[in-house]
């Protein structure tokens, strides 16, 4: 924090990063309004990035709250590990696989990312701020998976899956659209990732849930469903609020710029639409569970808010407030119906990630043309092509990977371990060692 040294550092940094501009940077003064825009854009990425990073904590709390006590520490372990892995893999492989692609292409390049790589910036923002913002999206995708397949998957196969998901699978499909690959060329539109992030996470989760099978005792032989209530609803609620907060970064900074009045207005509209969709999703689930079950189900209200957020993510800018509310409310409704529907198919999704991220993600993506003028060229057909092609790729790739893991190292803990809980079985510790039966208490 020494100012004189900072100047030296800043100059060095400038030299390292944008060699051409650094020479012009001899004074700390602005050279032009373009510089101001550069800083605003960078700031938007950084703020958006740290808000999305915070979503990793949101997923952790949501999942820790919705699994049973005996699996809480494992869920925490998986979540901090997956965020860390995403941070390394997206640097080592992911970013350039996603953005080092030719326009209209199918696959990017394999190269470690480094800041200042001219390919990674159009010169209107710091390349490192862009990397940071893109990386947290990859981490979000992995967070989605961990919730669905909780309480029965072994730690290491999950982590290996995460390595491939954040390093390979996510970047490849991402390159098709945001990397300006073939889907982008066709006219597919997914503003902040209803399909690219949320459905992708959802498809990977679905493949895992199918191959892993449900938790022991969830669907008893005699028929019916045996619910396993989550261990801590306040933690689940906290997680939902964290995700809601993070989503302002997720959608808002996906505007990718706020150096002009138009961009600033756009970011502001994205904030309001995002909030409105979430609110409408929560209220829809609130009303619907009251009507259907005569009781409000808090966990479905939480899921409803998240489904509202996922739904608006494909296009948070063009809808009016009423449209945003409607889009979000339908997301909330989808969740209330899809959660028991999955149970009917005996697909065991511990936290509801498939309804929230996959189904509401599809809905959000398909409804994009509704709020676009025809001349924008966003069509239902191209949206469907995007949804289907990304879905097919991610589901197939994930299924193959899960299968390979199953056949090699195995993906599921033993029934005894599942009964004992993953915390004791795999970690050798307990999340709340002292409560109730805790061995430490006695």
């Amino acid at each position, binding site marked *: 924090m020494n100012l004189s040294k900072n100047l030296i550092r800043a100059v060095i940094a400038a030299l390292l990063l944008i060699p051409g501009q650094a020479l012009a940077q001899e004074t700390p003064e602005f050279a032009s309004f373009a510089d101001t825009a550069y800083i605003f854009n960078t700031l938007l990425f950084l703020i958006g990035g740290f808000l999305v990073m915070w979503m990793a904590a949101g997923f952790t709390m949501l999942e820790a709250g919705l699994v049973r006590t005996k699996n809480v520490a494992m869920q925490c372990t998986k979540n901090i590990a997956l965020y860390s892995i995403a941070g390394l893999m997206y640097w080592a492989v992911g970013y350039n696989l996603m953005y080092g692609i030719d326009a209209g292409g199918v696959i990017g390049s394999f190269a470690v990312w480094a800041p200042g790589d001219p390919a990674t910036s159009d010169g209107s923002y710091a390349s490192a701020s862009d990397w940071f913002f893109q990386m947290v999206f990859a981490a979000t995708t992995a967070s989605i998976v961990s919730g669905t397949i909780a309480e029965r998957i072994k730690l290491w196969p999950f982590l290996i899956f995460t390595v491939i998901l954040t390093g390979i699978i996510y970047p490849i499909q991402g390159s098709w659209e945001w990397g300006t690959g073939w889907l982008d060329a066709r006219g597919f539109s997914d503003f902040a990732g209803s399909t690219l992030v949320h459905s992708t996470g959802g498809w990977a989760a679905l493949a895992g849930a199918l191959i892993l099978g449900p938790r022991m005792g969830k669907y008893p032989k005699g028929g019916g*469903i*045996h*619910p396993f*209530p989550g261990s801590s609803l306040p933690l689940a609620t906290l997680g939902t609020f964290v995700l809601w907060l993070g989503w302002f970064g997720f959608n808002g900074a996906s505007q990718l710029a706020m150096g002009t009045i138009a961009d600033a207005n756009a970011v502001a509209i994205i904030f309001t639409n995002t909030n409105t969709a979430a609110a409408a999703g929560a209220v829809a689930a609130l009303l619907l569970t009251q009507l*259907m*079950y005569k*009781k409000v*189900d808090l*966990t*479905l209200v939480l899921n409803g808010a998240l489904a509202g957020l996922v739904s608006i993510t494909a296009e948070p800018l063009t809808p009016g407030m009423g449209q945003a509310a409607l889009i979000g409310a339908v997301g909330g409704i989808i969740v*209330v119906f899809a*959660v*028991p529907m999955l*149970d009917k198919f005996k697909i065991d999704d511990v936290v*509801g990630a498939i309804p929230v991220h996959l189904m509401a993600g599809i809905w959000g993506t398909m409804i994009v043309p509704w709020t676009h003028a025809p001349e924008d060229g966003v069509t239902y057909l191209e949206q469907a092509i995007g949804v289907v092609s990304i879905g097919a790729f991610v589901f197939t790739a994930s299924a193959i990977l899960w299968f390979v893991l199953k056949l090699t190292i195995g993906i599921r803990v033993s029934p005894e371990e599942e009964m004992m809980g993953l915390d004791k079985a795999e970690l050798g510790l307990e999340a709340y060692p002292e409560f109730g039966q805790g061995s430490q208490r006695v």
Partner: protein
Amino acid sequence: MKLIIAIIKPFKLDAVRDQLTTLGVQGLTVSEVNGYGRQKGHTEIYRGAEYSVNFVPKLKLEIVVDGKLAGKVIEAIQETAGTGQIGDGKIFSIPVEKAVRIRTGEQNLEAL
């Protein structure tokens, strides 16, 4: 000496304890238990799936008393713990052969 075991509704604890104190009972031990009986628990809904919770939270009191006091104690519990509604609980009486106060080594009635 008798060991009186009483299963009661949790919110009745204070009333029962106060009443027993007036009878001269100087100690008792309470545990949190779950009861199954005629009172049938209730149905919960979690994420669209109904399930019935068969067990009802109760408290179990264990009180060792002089055999001569046992009748009165049972009566007192029955009166103060009752609401007249299903699930009020049970009282059981079991013979105790020996009692010891750990602190002093006093035995039997002196130990209570």
